[in-house]
């Protein structure tokens, strides 16, 4: 059967009858706005965003160009000056091996932030995709994804790590990140799925379907922005958790391998000296803390910005 398409005329004429006549429509320049553009605009004005942004840039540059922050070689270690307290010469004191701790902590940023970042982003992507799909389609798709999630959940990540990291030739950032991603996505996925489920029945989703939007469009444009909140909130803290997990792996003997330098290794090394040489713990904790803080604050700011209602 033939399409009953109406003539081209349909595109235009409505305006010719109802064009705003009289005074020419004020041609005030209205900026193009979308949620993202708006979010960006309001972010730029959010002091917390700026603060966290600056912090993150600082940490990132620390990760990329540690030389900018210290000229001391982190591997220059003199056992004779082991575990010295902070002093003018060694701002953060020295570690067990007698290396300059300031320089160690600075150089530790690279591996830790890399692991934190890669894992957070990796799990985030997996979680968002799987959570969206499971929550949106429900029924058997959800069953398959959810049961699969259960299975991964069931495997203790420590077991997975022990196996994978032992089998792998070397244990670098990539390997550690890979293992952590593989075993850590389920929580976030469930979180995403949960919040998808709670918006999927909204009327505006119906409305989009009525417009002929396909699942992908609906998920992307309607469900995603309205369900991302909890996941963003979690993912930002997650970055910190990952750095902690890296330390745990190290503690269990399967973390990054010596002579790598990372905050996780430092945290793990410093634990025995909590009482005797607290600064060994203190400094990496401060750095990890600040990173987490930066991520968290940024997450909050983004979340806020993505919510038109909260725009001040």
């Amino acid at each position, binding site marked *: 059967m033939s399409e009953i398409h109406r003539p081209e005329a349909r595109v235009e004429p409505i305006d010719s009858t109802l064009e705003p006549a009289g005074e020419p429509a004020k041609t005030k320049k209205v900026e193009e706005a979308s949620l993202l553009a708006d979010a960006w605009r309001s972010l730029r004005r959010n002091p917390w965003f700026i603060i966290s942004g600056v912090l993150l840039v600082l940490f990132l540059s620390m990760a990329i160009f540690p030389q900018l922050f210290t000229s001391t070689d982190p591997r220059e270690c003199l056992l004779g000056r082991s575990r010295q307290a902070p002093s003018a010469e060694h701002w953060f004191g020295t570690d067990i091996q007698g290396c300059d701790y300031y320089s160690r902590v600075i150089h530790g940023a690279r591996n830790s932030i890399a692991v934190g970042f890669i894992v957070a982003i990796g799990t985030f992507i997996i979680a968002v995709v799987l959570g969206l799909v499971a929550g949106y389609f429900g029924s058997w798709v959800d069953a398959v994804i959810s049961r699969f999630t259960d299975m991964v*959940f069931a495997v*203790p*990540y*420590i077991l997975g790590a022990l*196996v994978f990291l032992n089998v792998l030739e070397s244990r670098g950032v990539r390997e550690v990140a890979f293992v952590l991603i593989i075993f850590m996505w389920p929580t976030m996925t*469930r979180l995403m799925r949960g919040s998808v*489920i709670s918006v999927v029945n909204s009327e505006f989703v119906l409305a989009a379907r009525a417009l002929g939007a396909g699942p992908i469009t609906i998920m992307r444009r309607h469900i995603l922005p309205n369900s991302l909140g909890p996941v963003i909130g979690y993912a930002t803290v997650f970055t910190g958790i990952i750095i*902690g997990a890296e330390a745990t792996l190290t503690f269990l003997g399967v973390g990054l391998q010596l002579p790598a330098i990372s905050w996780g290794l430092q945290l793990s090394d410093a634990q025995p000296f909590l*009482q005797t040489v607290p600064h060994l713990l203190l400094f990496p904790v401060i750095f990890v803390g600040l990173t987490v803080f930066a991520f968290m604050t940024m997450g909050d700011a983004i979340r806020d910005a993505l919510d038109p209602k909260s725009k001040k």
Partner: protein
Amino acid sequence: MTRYIIRRLLQFIPVILISTLIVYALVFAIPGDPIRALAGDRPMSDAVRETLREQYNLDDPFLVQYFKYIWGIITALDFGSTFNGRPVTDIIEQRLPVTATLALVTFVIQTIMGIIAGILAALYRDRFFDRFVQVSTVAMVALPTLVIGFLLQLIFGLNLGWFPIAGVNNGLSSYILPALTMAAVSTGILARLVRSELLDSLKSDYVRTATAKGMKRTRVITRHGLRNSLIPAVTFIGADLASMMAGSIIVETIFNLPGLGQQVFASIQGQEGTVVVGIVTLFVLFFVVINLIVDLLYGLLDPRIRYE
């Protein structure tokens, strides 16, 4: 609905089969001979080694091992035993209560504290308490569990003497510090989740209605706002309960609680496949049940969610 539950229960079977298979495979894949490690520096004689390997089916190909294991379970409810001859069922029987109590206490602590802190943080948004929650979350995340546990032991166990430092001999109070340690990070996350979800729902019209009905702010928040914001919280709590085992490995070690976490870690290191699988099976069961409950809770929390 009832059918939904039944269907979910049926799904347990493949989940358990597959995940035990995975776990078994993983344990199998750990390089090195577990029997060899048993003896330590001074190697045991080959004869002994052979006998032991045979006893634990270690010379069979992986799948054969796995099927022998499953077969043992099916035919004789034999869950295998450790390399030192203790039946896995015994171990579970002895250790499960410890881990379960720990998980329960942790769950209670983190749920109550997390939700209350979240509510207060939302109520006093950007004020002192809110910042306090934020900063303590940062601190909890940044401090390794070991350190948190140790600090708690030092302060509340040694210096103040309020709670036992270790062991399970003092009833429930033995579990307070370990549970606090385990709950530390999650409480912070939970509080933040609840806070931000609450803040979201406080913007909604129905909360406005509640205000217009003359309800007190606390009631508005707890009765009208909270329920709508609980889905992420419930998901998180469920997921967290499920992942408590990873946490319990460390916490049970520091606090010397003879629970499953400790055992599973030891068994992973000792490559005692049967033990790991036995315990993990238990955990899988636990997860799927928890997740089923969580999914049912969704329906309770939000009646718009339908089960097909």
